[in-house]
């Protein structure tokens, strides 16, 4: 069952129940602040702890110890006074801290004194030829199915790309008895050298030993092809084959399921639609919000925590959630805030949690050819717009993603640029010899998730309307 928010006003509204949101809401409630946690999914956990309260995967070691950390976070939150609503889609947030949320097909408006946006990350677009074919999915998609429904790949399966999640997913699929025929590793050889100076911090981070063990586990069972420099999916209305080039040699393999992954990037839509300033991050190759050390954004009252604040991983997300919530408590209820763990301790935790991140970002920086497509390769999945269409628009005067709207509908479909925005920015930057920062991003608009006309028509009338009726 889902219920509408109990009140119209809250001290703190947290959006997203991943690691950052769970920690932020629990901390805020612990400080005695009226706290509402809104989350779009069926249960809490976000992506990393997806289905933590309901997974049918009973054998704990199959998902790994890092996953089950999420259960403690959920337990702490449930023990608090925070109001939690699942399957609640926030479709508007503005600089007046007015939030529109759709729950069970009806929309409600709530107002907050502080908003903590914890909308996390999404997988970076991987625009290769054929990536819209049925049978091509993200690695995260397969992991979601594995965690929430114990579903594993069954047909001829290829995993392509790079990054820690890719190896974790492969290990989990194998542990649950799923099938992986080949792993195509797209990590650029040059990245190993670039990352080397950063290796010390990584070696002392908790990721190192775990990562190494996982890669060993996977390599023992699956053929791993390193140095993949080209990748394409093909088939007639359904994936049939994956072709790739590695070490200058081209090969094609019959494939039923191709899982793509080249890292995650902040899910910026809600924050950008609220007017939060973002900057291009040259290392992580994505937009990140401009934040102070407490996570406060350029919009007064809106803080951002978790991977939506810049990719830092689950451990960092938890700490960032606590920091943002503590900062909110300091502003709204200073006496109660004093009982929370001190800010200095939290900052120390964050430094620890972020150790090794730059090494990972450098090592797994995705290659240009997998970020910036050419020719007929689809860039905008929703409106089915190819790279060459965008370059044609640039040739006749489109200077940025918004100017592009005079020529093409890129980014105007239902996903609102989530799956093409970064590609369009980088493609236009490359074509025009500008930086992504100079090129900019789509101006995002509410509703950040579509709502039906009937649902909008059913929202409570404004005061002006009510008065008009009273006047007759």
């Amino acid at each position, binding site marked *: 069952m889902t219920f509408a928010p109990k009140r119209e006003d809250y001290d703190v509204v947290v959006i997203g129940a991943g690691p950052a949101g769970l920690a932020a809401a629990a901390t805020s409630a612990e400080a005695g602040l009226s706290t509402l946690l809104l989350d779009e999914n*069926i249960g809490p956990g976000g992506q990393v702890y997806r289905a933590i309260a309901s997974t049918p995967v009973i054998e704990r070691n199959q998902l790994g110890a890092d996953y089950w950390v999420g259960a403690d976070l959920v337990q702490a939150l449930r023990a608090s006074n925070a109001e939690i609503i699942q399957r609640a889609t926030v479709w508007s947030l503005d600089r007046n801290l007015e939030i529109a949320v759709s729950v069970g097909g009806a929309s409600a408006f709530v107002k907050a004194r502080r908003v903590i946006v914890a909308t996390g990350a*999404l997988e970076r677009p991987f625009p290769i030829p054929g990536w*819209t074919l049925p049978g091509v999915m993200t690695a995260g998609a397969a992991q979601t199915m594995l965690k*929430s429904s114990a*579903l594993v790949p069954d047909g001829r399966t290829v995993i392509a790309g790079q990054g820690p999640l890719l190896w974790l997913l492969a290990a989990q699929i194998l542990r649950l008895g799923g099938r992986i025929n080949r792993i195509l590793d797209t990590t650029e050889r040059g990245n190993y050298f670039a990352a080397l100076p950063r290796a010390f911090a990584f070696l002392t981070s908790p990721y190192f030993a775990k990562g190494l063990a996982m890669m060993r586990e996977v390599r023992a069972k699956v053929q791993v092809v390193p140095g993949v420099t080209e990748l394409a999916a093909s088939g007639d*209305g359904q994936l049939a084959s994956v072709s790739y080039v590695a070490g200058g040699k081209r090969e094609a393999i019959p494939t039923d*399921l191709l899982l793509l992954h080249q890292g995650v990037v902040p899910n910026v839509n809600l924050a950008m639609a609220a007017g939060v300033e973002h900057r291009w991050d040259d290392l992580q190759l994505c937009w990140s919000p401009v934040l102070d050390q407490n996570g406060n954004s350029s919009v007064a009252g809106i803080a951002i925590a978790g991977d939506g604040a810049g990719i830092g991983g689950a451990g960092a997300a938890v700490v960032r959630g606590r920091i943002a919530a503590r900062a909110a408590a300091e502003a709204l209820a200073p006496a109660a805030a004093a009982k929370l763990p001190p800010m200095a301790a939290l900052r120390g935790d964050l430094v620890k949690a972020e150790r090794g991140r730059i090494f990972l970002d450098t090592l797994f920086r995705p290659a240009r050819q997998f970020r910036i497509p050419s020719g007929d390769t689809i860039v905008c999945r929703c409106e*089915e717009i190819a790279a060459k269409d965008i370059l044609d628009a640039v040739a006749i005067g489109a200077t940025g993603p918004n100017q592009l709207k005079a020529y093409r509908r890129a980014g105007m479909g*239902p996903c609102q640029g989530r799956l093409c925005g970064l590609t369009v920015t980088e493609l236009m930057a490359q074509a025009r010899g500008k930086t992504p920062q100079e090129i900019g991003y789509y101006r995002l608009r509410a509703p950040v998730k579509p709502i039906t006309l009937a649902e909008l028509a059913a929202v409570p009338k404004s005061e002006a309307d009510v008065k008009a009726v009273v006047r007759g």
Partner: protein
Amino acid sequence: MFKRSEQDKRPPVEIFVDGTAITAQQGDTVSAALLASGRDVRRSTAVSGAPRLPYCMMGVCFDCLVTIDGVGNRQGCLVPVAEGMQIEIQKGKREIGR
């Protein structure tokens, strides 16, 4: 494309896809149930009619759009299955006002 793990002990839920009954597990999303069914559940896009299946399974790509109990353009990856649920695979632009 996908198979279920034997350790999955969740109770079954019967849903209907274009009128045909399929068995899902309680807690599945509509998209997961469709993919697990082994049936051809490709939708076709409103723009060119190209076939698609869910891509991200986390609510961001909108390639899982499906009609659920008469309401169109729902994100199947965000909606849990329920007993007796009627699913229609969307072909092209979704009819309104039927």
